[in-house]
Each structure stands twice: as C-alpha cells, then as structure tokens.
C-alpha cells in the first residue's frame, strides 16, 4: 500500500536525473560545450559527459532550404544523344548506312535498315549497347535498360524502358549529390546538409545562408565542358550550337568531342596577361592532354570551339599545337563568372540539370525573434498552468507542478539524446504539452477525490485513484499518439519537429505524471499521515 522501497526511489530519481542531465549540453552554446569538455580532468571518461545536443531547425537558426530535382527530360535528352552517338559508331564499325540517318525519339533512336542480312549483322552489336538493370538485393532482374524492337520492313527502334529510365534517374541523382557536395564544399560554406529525398530529389540545407541565389546559380548549371572543332563548310555531321556572344547566333560545330570537362584535373580563375581579361586556366589529365595535343597538331589554323552547357563560349583559332596539356578559357567573363566557372569545372559536371522545386529561407533576425517569442510563450504558459494547478489542488497541485517541470526537462533531455531538430512548431508543441501534460494528474486527482468522497480511506482512495485512472490515461494518450505518429511520417521539416516533440511529450508525461507524482504522494503520505485530502 503506497510503499516504495528505497531502491525503487533511487532508481526512479536516477532515471530522472540522467534524463535532465542529458538536456544540459543543449542549454550551452557550442563554444561553452567545448570549453566545458576541455576543462574536465582527464580521468573523467568522455562517454560519461553528455555531449549530444538539440539541433535548431533552419526556421529558428536562419538559413536556406533548397529542394532540387533532377530534370528527367534533360537527362533523357543527354542519354538519347549519347545513344545516338553510340549507334553511329556501331553503324560505322559495321559499315552499315541506314536509310535517312538516325532519328532521335523522345526516349531513344530509330534507324531503317531494309536489308535483312545487314540487320542480322547489326543486331548483336546493337544489343551490346543495352545494359542489364542490376538490383543490389535481388541480383540481376533479367531486364535491360533499352528495349530493341524491329519491324519486318527493317525499322529498328531502341528505346529506354521505364525500368531503364528509373535506373538512369537513380544513378544520375547519386552522381548529382556528389557533384553538389563538391561544389558546395569548395565554397567553404559552414555545415551544409545534403540529403537525398525520394528517387530524384536532393535537399540542400545551409544554416546561416541568407540569400540562396548564388547557391542556386552554382547548382543550377550543368557545367558540361567540351572542346570541339568548328565545322568546315560542307560538313554533314554537325550540331548547331548557339554562340555566347553575337546574340545567340548559331554556329555549326563538329559532333566529335576532342576533350571534355571530365579530362580536366585542375581549373583556376586568372587574368589574361595581354588583354587583362578574366579567364580560367586549366590542366588536362594525360588522356585529355594527348587527345588535345593530337587534335591541335592536326588542325592548325582551324577554330576550336569551347562549349559550355551547349553554348559556344569562345572559338579561338589554333595557332600552334597545344601539347603541354594546359590551356585557358576566355569568353568575356566577369571576375565572378570565372570564379564560378573554375569551381564548377573542378567539381565536375552534373549528369543532368537540377531544378529548384522548393525554397525556404529564413533570415537570422526572424529566427532569433521566434526563439525569443517561443521562450516567452513557454514561460508564460508554465506560470499560468502551474498557478492554476496549485490554486486548484494545493499541495497535490505542487506535486503535479514538479512533475510538469521534470516533464519539460525530460523532453529536452530526450531530444538532446536523439539529436532531434527543434523547430518553431516544435516550440508550439512544447507549450501545448505543458497544457495537456497535467491532464494525467487531473484525471488521477479527480478520481482520488471521487473515491474518497465515496467513502474510501485516504490511502485506499489514492491507491484506487491511480489504478482506475491509469487505463484512461493510457487511452487518452494513445489517441494523441495516433495523430502525432501519422504527422511524423507525413510531415517534413518544421511540422515533423512538432510531431517529434508531441510524441516525446506523450512518453514523458506517462513517466512523470504517473510514476513521479505517485512516488511524491506516497512519500508525503508516510511522512504527514494526513486525515483528509489537501484538496
């Protein structure tokens, strides 16, 4: 009957004290935390010192949240162009010339080879261009990324299958994450977080960033660099590309790519010593240097087109062979542009364009104000609820209030342990749980009052109150938990922060309102031996 063994009391207190201590690092700034850890004598093992802290959400800390999506049509365009080039190579090697050349389709290519014998010869080679779609768990699924269909008239269609497209998108996203990370790292931004979201999205979060425009510009460029020759008059195998200068006028360039961005090992912004114009100096790797050297030796006096993202930025004339593997890109750039270009070239090209589908930026001022407002609301709510509980239940209200404060402390402790993110809706969640946490105590106290008024003794009334109310407490908290869990899985960012606080709040309220108050009341009963309820 309301008896607590000493060990049980100690165990309960220990759990609570540890829980509260976990919250301590979150109350300190990062510097204070480090200073504190360094000030400890060396014999204190590091695992004993709580070091995990709550992370402030971007809405409180200020910063930028940019959601990027791989541009699938752009990716398909690149892939089908690549396929066209491969098919052309195969045709050349097999010495087959299709009727009407190679047709580009939205998802593949089409050629017409009426001669059955030629088709026979060609098909195995075309099949080599397709790749099996691998699955890490299930192994080879047997399907391939490109489906080849032929008609009796000799029309051969190669098209990416849905699975093939998905596979390309998946790989492009993975590749893009790496490129995005490198581009941001070179910028030296503090603690960016780069995560994959879904099949084709990348979430970039940069604390403290106030204007993501530059970030978006940096990430929005594919940065595909190619060196090709300007086509000579009469050439057939040409692409028409826009010139950067002269108002987007189109010029013919050869389809063959001499060297590309992937062959670069370094790129640095610099100035041209003669014209004093901002330029980018680059160095090729061995393969690039060889190919570039050979091409420039063979094509003296012709124009070399430097193509960036399908735009000819400049087309200097080759005056002498460039065999040292070094070169420069000029093209009426500003200083800012050459800086960016150098970064982009060093970080590598994106497999496809990235589009910004969502952007949320909070300035540091608003974040600070929100924290201040949140603190104020928390204090006021606590004072109001504590006063109200004390006025209604007296001493028992005091017990509930102690439990309430421990409850708030434990939420912070658990959030620190989980390194959870505190957002503005999360603060609202904390304030809301201050109001709802005492519900359990109210349920218990009202029940105790009823039981005692129905004729039970105080001790058995208290006992019955706790026992009877317990089922209802579990019920009423589970209903809240249902809503919170659904919210957690559906929401993102700030809203998820609210769900986390709410779920943790439900857990801790059961601990504090039931276990802790019960213990306090039991100890009080044994100490005071009251003849009547204090409320």
């Amino acid at each position, binding site marked *: 009957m309301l008896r607590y063994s000493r060990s049980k009391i100690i165990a309960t207190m220990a759990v609570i004290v540890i829980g509260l201590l976990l919250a301590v690092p979150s109350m300190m700034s990062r510097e204070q935390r480090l200073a504190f850890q360094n000030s400890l004598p060396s014999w204190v093992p590091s695992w004993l010192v709580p070091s995990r802290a709550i992370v402030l959400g971007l809405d409180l800390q200020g910063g930028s949240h940019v959601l990027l999506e791989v541009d699938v049509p752009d990716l398909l365009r690149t892939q089908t162009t690549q396929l066209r080039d491969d098919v052309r190579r195969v045709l050349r090697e097999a010495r087959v010339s299709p009727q009407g050349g190679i047709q580009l389709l939205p998802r593949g290519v089409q050629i017409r080879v009426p001669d059955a014998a030629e088709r026979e010869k060609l098909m195995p080679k075309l099949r080599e261009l397709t790749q099996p779609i691998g699955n890490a768990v299930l192994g080879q699924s047997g399907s391939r990324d490109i489906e080849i269909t032929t008609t009796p008239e000799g029309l051969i269609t190669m098209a990416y299958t849905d699975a093939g497209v998905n596979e390309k998108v998946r790989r492009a996203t993975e590749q893009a994450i790496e490129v995005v990370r490198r581009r941001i790292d070179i910028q030296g931004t503090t603690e960016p977080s780069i995560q994959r979201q879904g099949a084709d999205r990348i979430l970039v979060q940069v604390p403290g960033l106030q204007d993501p425009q530059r970030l978006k510009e940096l990430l929005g460029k594919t940065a595909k660099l190619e060196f090709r020759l300007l086509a000579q008059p009469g050439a057939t195998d040409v692409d028409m590309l826009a010139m950067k200068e002269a108002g987007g006028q189109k010029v013919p360039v050869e389809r063959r790519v001499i060297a590309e961005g992937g062959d670069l090992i370094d790129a640095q912004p610099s100035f041209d010593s003669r014209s004093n114009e901002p330029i980018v100096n680059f160095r090729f790797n061995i393969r690039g240097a060889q190919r570039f050297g050979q091409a420039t030796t063979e094509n003296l006096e012709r124009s070399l087109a430097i193509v960036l993202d399908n735009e000819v930025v400049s087309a200097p004339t080759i005056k002498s062979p460039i065999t040292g593997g070094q070169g420069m890109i000029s093209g009426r750039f500003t200083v800012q542009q050459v800086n960016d270009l150098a970064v982009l070239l060093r970080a590598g090209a994106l497999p496809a364009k990235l589009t910004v589908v969502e952007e*949320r930026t909070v300035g540091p001022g608003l974040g600070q*104000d929100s924290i201040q407002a949140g603190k104020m*609301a*928390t204090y006021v709510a606590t004072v109001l609820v504590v006063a109200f509980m004390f006025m*209604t239940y007296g001493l028992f209200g005091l017990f509930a209030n102690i439990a309430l404060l421990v409850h708030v402390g434990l939420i912070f402790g658990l959030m620190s342990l989980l390194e959870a993110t505190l957002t503005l809706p999360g603060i609202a969640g904390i304030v809301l749980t201050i*109001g709802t946490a005492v519900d359990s105590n109210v349920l218990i106290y009202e029940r105790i009052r009823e039981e005692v008024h129905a004729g039970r003794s105080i001790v058995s009334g208290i006992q019955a109150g706790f026992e009877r109310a317990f089922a209802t407490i579990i019920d009423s908290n589970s*209903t*809240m938990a249902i809503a919170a869990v659904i*919210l957690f899985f559906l*929401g993102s960012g700030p809203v998820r922060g609210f769900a986390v606080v709410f779920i943790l709040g439900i857990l801790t309220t059961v601990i504090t309102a039931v276990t802790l108050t019960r213990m306090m009341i039991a100890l009080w009963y044994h100490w005071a031996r009251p003849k009547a309820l204090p409320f």
Partner: protein
Amino acid sequence: MRLLRIWPENSHFDFMSLRRFSFPLSAFLSLLTVVLLMTIGLNFGIDFKGGTLMELQAKSGHADVAKIRKAADSFGFGEVEVQEFGTAGGVSLRFPIQQGGESAQSAVVQKARDTFSDEYEFRRVETVGPRVSGELVQSGTIGIILAVIAVLFYLWFRFERELALGAIFGTLHDIVLTIGFFVITQHEFNMTSIAAILTIVGYSLNETVVVFDRTRELMRRYKTMPTKELLNLSINTTMSRTVMTAATTALSLLALVIFGGRAIESFAQVMLSGVAICTYSAIFISSPMLIYIGLRSSETAKAPEGKVAPAE
C-alpha cells in the same frame, strides 16, 4: 487556504436534454461550413497552392505598403497580395505560382530582392513549385484520412461498437467545424494547419474517450440505468476533469497566441478554437448520439459469448 473549484462537486446537470439545442446548432454550423467552403473556400497558403511568400521588415520606420504594392504589381508576376502586420514595419507579400514550370518561380524572388533589399530586410522567403505543392496537398489529405482510419481501428479494438460510432461521429464533427473556423477566419491553410487538425483529432478523441471510459464503467456498475441517465452521470462525474484540462490547455494556448509571435499565432488560434469545439462536442454531440445509437444492444448481444464484464 480555500482552493479553486471551477465545477461544483456532485453536479446533476441534465446535459442530455440540451441536445435539442446542440444538435440543430451543430447541424447548422456544419452546413454553413460546407456552404462557405464551396462559396468562399479555404485560404490556401503556398504549401498547397504554390507560389512565393516573402516577409519583409522595414530597415527604418514604417513600411510603405502602397509603394510596395505598386512596385510589386509592376513586376508582372500576377496578382500580388500585400499585407502589413504588426506596427514595426512588417509586410508580407504573396505572389501566385508562375507559369513555366519549376524554374520560373526563382525570377520572382530575384526581382523582389533587387527592388526591395535597399529599404527592407528579407526575413523569410518561401517558394513552392507546382510539383511540390501538388504533393503536399496529397500528403495532407492522406494524413487526415489516415488519421480517421487509424482512429476508427483504435476505437474498434478499444470500445463497443456503439461507443466507437459515437466517438467517430464526434471526431468528424470536430474536423468539419475546425475547417469551418479556417473558412470564416480566412486563416492561411498550410501544412501547419494539417498539423493543427491532426492534433485536434487527437484531442477530440481524448475528450470523448475519457467520458466514454466512464460510461462503460458505469454501464457495468448500473446494469439497469436508462441510457440518458447513464450518460448524464458519466458527463457529470467527469466534468470537473474536462473543465480543468480544457482550462490548462487553453491557458497554454493563450500564452502562444499572445506571445508566440506571428508564425505561431494562427496555429495557436486554431488549436484554441479546436479545444472549445472538442470540449463542446464530447459533451453535447458524441454522448447524446449514443441515445440514438442505443447503448445496450451490443452489450447484451455479446453477453452469451461469455464476455467478461467485471461488475463492482
């Protein structure tokens, strides 16, 4: 010291008879909600509608709303909503979603930054493209439907059929009236609003469950008591708890409304109205519903199967 008692002990108030007023009132309000929803509609925020939202703060003095509106209109990005808030030079601008896909949205932000950043600090900029907003609508809708289904399952396992029916009826009532509150106040409806509605679903159920737990207990104790009396007794005995919890929750929400700042204010107001709606419906809607559904039918039907009914 004399302690506070908000609700008198041993009250014998006849709550059930008030259904003559509460049912028509709720029917009227629900109908009104549906009509307003179809005529005025919700004020969807950019989460669901897409577009760009900016919060500007004048670097000195007041914000010149007329000038901002004129400048923003001249951008040619469609109809701009300009709203002043607070007294210290805060302005919010809302641009509609731009034609031309995901990448077209960025131009709005760029133009606004170029125009206003000399005189104003950009406190918040949010841009949601058409695809993301479509997905958010989807996940918001799924969220509410899932919550209702989850609640149904919970009630099905936890309560007898009649009680579960009454509770789900009450919960739906609360969702409808909360949406009504959104329509009438024209509070922005966004992802946080979904959070508010889901929390209200939780709270609504919480209120009903506490009363119904008592109803079930009393059913077993007073096997012959008429339904109406039984329900009145359940509500009267749990009333002091209902009032207490509504009060503490309302107090903390009040603190949020007054001190929580602009971003939280509307969430807190909705929650506050939700607490009022839920408390009202637990007493005046879900409980009296049981008079019509009939309480004892399944209890007697289950009895022959040997269901344990622990009587006092």
